[in-house]
C-alpha cells in the first residue's frame, strides 16, 4: 500500500504504524517514548501528525503516529501549524519537568524553546516518564520495575521501593532511557542498579567482568544458550578463534612447503 506524507507518496506495509514509515523514510518527527524494541505507548505525544483520507469527506484529525496503523492512501502532514505548536507546548512542559536534561534542552531548542514558560519542577531529575524502561523490562520478561503513583506524582519504582527481587541487572532499562536518567555502577566485579548489588561473571581467561550471574543463568535457562557460554568473554573467544585460524593457515603453509620439498 502507499501513504502520502507531506505531499509525497511512500510505500507502507500492512501492520506498520505511521511512525515506522516516517522513521524508515528519514522524515524528521520527534518521538521520545517510541522504540522498535517495545510496543508503542503514546505517552510523549511529540510524534503527533495530522491525518486525512480522500474517502473521509474532508475530515482531518491529529493522531499519535506511533499508534496509528497505516492504511492505503492515508494522507499525513507532519508539520502543520497546530502540530508544531503542540510539540512546542509539550517540549515547554518537559523542559519544566526536566530543566537539566541535555537531551530535552536540545530538542526544545530545535523548536525554538530555550527556557520554559512554566514553573520548573523542584528537585528535578531527568526522568520524562516515557515508560520505555518499564516496557523493555516487561519485554525482557522480568517486570522488575513498574510505574507507581499517578498524575504529577507518577514515578518509576521497584516493588515497595526496595531492591527489586526480579531484577537481573541486564541494563536494558539503562540503555533504552532516552535521557540517560537511569544510573548504574560497575565497581570491580560488582554491579549496582536499582539499589541492588549483583556479582559479575569473570572471564576465565582474561578475568574481565562480563555479565551478572543472574542474567547469565536466565539466558542459559531460557534462550537455548550453552551452559559454558559465559565462561569466556567475547574478546577472548574472538582471539581464540583468531589463534586457531592462524594455526590452520600455518599448517597449510607447512603442508605446501613439504609438498614442494618432496617434489
Amino acid at each position, binding site marked *: 500500500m502507499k501513504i502520502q506524507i507531506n505531499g509525497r507518496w511512500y510505500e507502507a506495509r500492512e501492520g506498520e504504524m505511521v511512525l515506522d514509515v516516517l522513521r524508515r523514510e528519514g522524515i524528521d518527527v520527534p518521538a521520545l517514548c517510541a522504540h522498535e524494541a517495545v510496543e508503542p505507548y*503514546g*505517552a*510523549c*505525544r511529540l510524534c503527533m501528525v495530522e491525518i486525512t483520507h480522500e474517502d473521509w469527506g474532508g475530515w482531518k484529525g491529529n493522531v*499519535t503516529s506511533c499508534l496509528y496503523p497505516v492504511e492505503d492512501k492515508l494522507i499525513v502532514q507532519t508539520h502543520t501549524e497546530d502540530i508544531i505548536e503542540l510539540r512546542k*507546548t*509539550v517540549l515547554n512542559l518537559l523542559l519544566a519537568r526536566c530543566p537539566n536534561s541535555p537531551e530535552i534542552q536540545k530538542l526544545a531548542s530545535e523548536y525554538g524553546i530555550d527556557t520554559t514558560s*512554566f514553573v520548573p519542577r523542584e528537585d528535578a531529575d531527568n526522568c520524562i*516518564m516515557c515508560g520505555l524502561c518499564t516496557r523493555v523490562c516487561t519485554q525482557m520478561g522480568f517486570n522488575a520495575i513498574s510505574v507507581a503513583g499517578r498524575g504529577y506524582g*507518577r514515578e518509576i519504582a521497584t516493588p515497595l521501593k526496595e531492591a527489586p527481587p526480579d531484577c537481573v541487572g541486564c541494563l536494558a532499562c539503562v540503555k533504552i532511557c532516552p535521557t540517560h536518567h537511569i544510573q548504574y555502577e560497575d565497581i570491580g566485579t560488582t554491579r549496582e542498579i536499582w539499589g541492588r548489588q549483583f556479582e559479575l561473571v569473570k572471564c576465565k581467561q582474561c578475568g574481565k567482568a562480563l555479565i551478572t550471574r543472574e542474567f547469565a543463568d536466565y539466558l542459559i535457562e531460557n534462550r537455548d544458550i550453552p551452559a559454558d557460554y559465559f565462561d569466556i568473554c567475547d574478546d577472548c573467544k574472538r582471539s581464540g578463534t583468531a589463534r586457531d585460524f592462524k594455526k590452520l593457515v600455518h599448517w597449510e603453509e607447512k603442508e605446501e612447503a613439504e609438498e614442494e620439498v618432496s617434489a
Partner: protein
Amino acid sequence: MECEMKIDSPDKLNAWKEECLQKDAKLKKKVMVCFGPGCLAAGCREIYAKFEEILAERKLGDITLESFKKTGCHGLCEKGPLVVIEPEGIFYNRVRTSQVKDIVEKTLAKGEIIERLLYKNPKTKERVLKYHDIDFYKKQTRLALRNLGHIDPDNIEDYVMRDGYQSVAKVLTGMTPEEVIDEVKLSGIRGRGGGGFPAGRKWATCRGVESDVRYVICNGDEGDPGAFMDRSIMEGDPHSVLEGMIVASYAVGARDAYIYVREEYPLAVQHLYQAIDDAKEHGFLGENIMGTDFSLDIHISRGGGAFVCGESSALMKSVAGEVGEPRAKYIHSVVKGLWDKPTVLNNVETFANIPLIMNKGGDWFRSIGTEKSTGTKAFSLVGKVENTGLIEVPMGTTLREIIYDIGGGIKDGRKFKAVQTGGPSGGCLPEDKLDLPVDFDTLTKAGSMMGSGGMIVMDDHTCMVDVAKYFLKFLVDESCGKDVPCREGLYQLHKMVVKVTEGKASEADLQLMEHLSKYIIMGSLCGLGKSGPNPFLSTVRYFRDEYLAHIIDKKCPGGVCRDLIRFEINDKCTGCTACIAPCPVDAITGEKDKIHILDQEKCTKCGACYAVCQFDAIDII
C-alpha cells in the same frame, strides 16, 4: 424464598409474579425506610433498629416486621432520613429516633398523621401529606429510578412483582438478537455514562465483529464528586442492572459479563452480589436461561478507586488485572476490548433502562425526551439548592425547571450564580444559560457537558476561579500521568489558577493558560485530559470579569479567595458576642452591646465569624 424452582419459562415467571403480588397484598401497610446514601449518613439505620425494637414488644395486628422494608434512595436526600408509609404514600422526612414511637403509635396503630414530620414546601410553607404531591417528585419522570424507594433491593420477589425479569423472558423466548438490537436502536437510547454514544449502534458493531468470545461490561465506576446516580441504582435496584446486562449479552452474544464497581460503594457491592446469587438461584443467570440455549454469568470486578478507571480502556485494563491506564482507541473497544475481544461497555443507568425499552418498545421510549436525546436522565442535584437529591427528568427539561421547580430554588433565598454539570471535567454555565434544554448536544455546545449526571448549583457566594481551582486539583490528582499534556499540562494549569486566586497572576498568564488549555485538549490521550481544561475554559468563558477582578483589581468578587479578601465588622453589629468564641485565633474582641473589633493582623480569614453572624454585621471586602 418460597419459590425454590428455576424460572425456565415466561409462564413460570408470570405465575411467580402473581404469587409475589398476592403475598404483597397481604401486607396491609408497608413502611419504607430509605437506605440511600444520604439517609444512611443521616442515621436511617438507627431509625430502622428502633422500629424493630418497638415491634418486638408491641403487637400491631396485621403489621409485622415483614411490613418494614429497607429501600434504596427515595431521592430527596436533603430531608433524610425518610420514611414512607404505603399504600397511602405518607411521606415523613427528617425523622428522628425519638419520633419512631409516635409513628408506630399514631400513624400505624391509629392512622393519624403526624403533622410536623411532613414535608414543608419551602415556597408556600405548607405541609404536604403525600409523596407524589411534593413538587420535587411531581415534575420528575422516573424510569431508570423506577423501583428506587419502592422495593427492598435484597428481595428478588419485590423486583419480580414490579415486572422484574419480564424482558429477559420476552427477549430470550421470542426475539432474535438482531431484533433486540433493532429495538434498542429504535429507542435511540444514548450512553448515560457521559459519552452519549448510541447504545444500539455499539451493540450492533460488537455483534458484527468476527470473534469466538464477546464481553459485556457494566461501568459502575462513578467517580465524579457529588454524583451518586449509579450508586443509588446499584444499591437500590441491582436487579434492573442485571436484567439490562442479560438482554445486552444475549443481543451481542456474550457468555460472560462484568460489573466494574467501586470498592468505595460497599453497599452497592453487597447488593449486587446478593442480586447475582438470587438471580442465579432462580435461573435468570447461569446455564440455559429461560430454558433456552443462552447461558450467562455475571462477575463483579471491584475497582480500587482510581477516577481514570471510569474511562473505558483503563477500566478494561483494570478488569484484566493490569494497571488502569487508558490506551489510544484508534481501534475501538467494541472491536478489541477486554482481553482483546469485542466488548460492549455501558453505564449502570443505560442498563437499567433496557428492560423498559424491551417491555414497552423503542417507540415508547423515544416518545420521551427530545429527538436526538431520547428518554430521561438521572441527575444528582447538589450544592446550594433547597432540595438536594437524586432526580430523573425527561431529556430536554431546562436547567431552570430542574433547579427551581424540582430543586426548589437557591438555598436561603440567595442569588443563582452558576451550575456545574458533567463532573469535574464538565463546565459551569451562568444564569443566561438556564433556559437551555438539558440534552447531550446542547450542553456540549454551551461549553459544558452532560457527563454522567452530576449537577452542582452555586450561589453568589461562590468564586468561579476557586471552583476552577477545585476541579483542576481533582483532575491533577486523578490523571493517571501517562501522557505529557495531561500530567504536566493540567499540573501547570492548576498552578496558574492558584496564582490567580492569590492575586499574583497577570493578563499574560491568562493568555498562556488559554494557549496551554488548547494544546492539552489536542494532545491528550484519553477523555480525562481532553476535557481536563474545561473547568478553567468554561469559567473563563462565562466569568472572565471575575478572573480580571482577581488579576487587575486584586479582588475576589465571590469573597472566597483568602489572599484577596478581608473581613470587617460594620455598624450593624449589635454586640451579641456570638462571633467571639468561634474565632480560632482570638482576633475578635468586644463587650456585650458594643460594636466588636476585628484585629486584621491576627485574622486568618477563615470565615467562622461571618458564618455565625445573624445581623449581616460582617462584610467581606
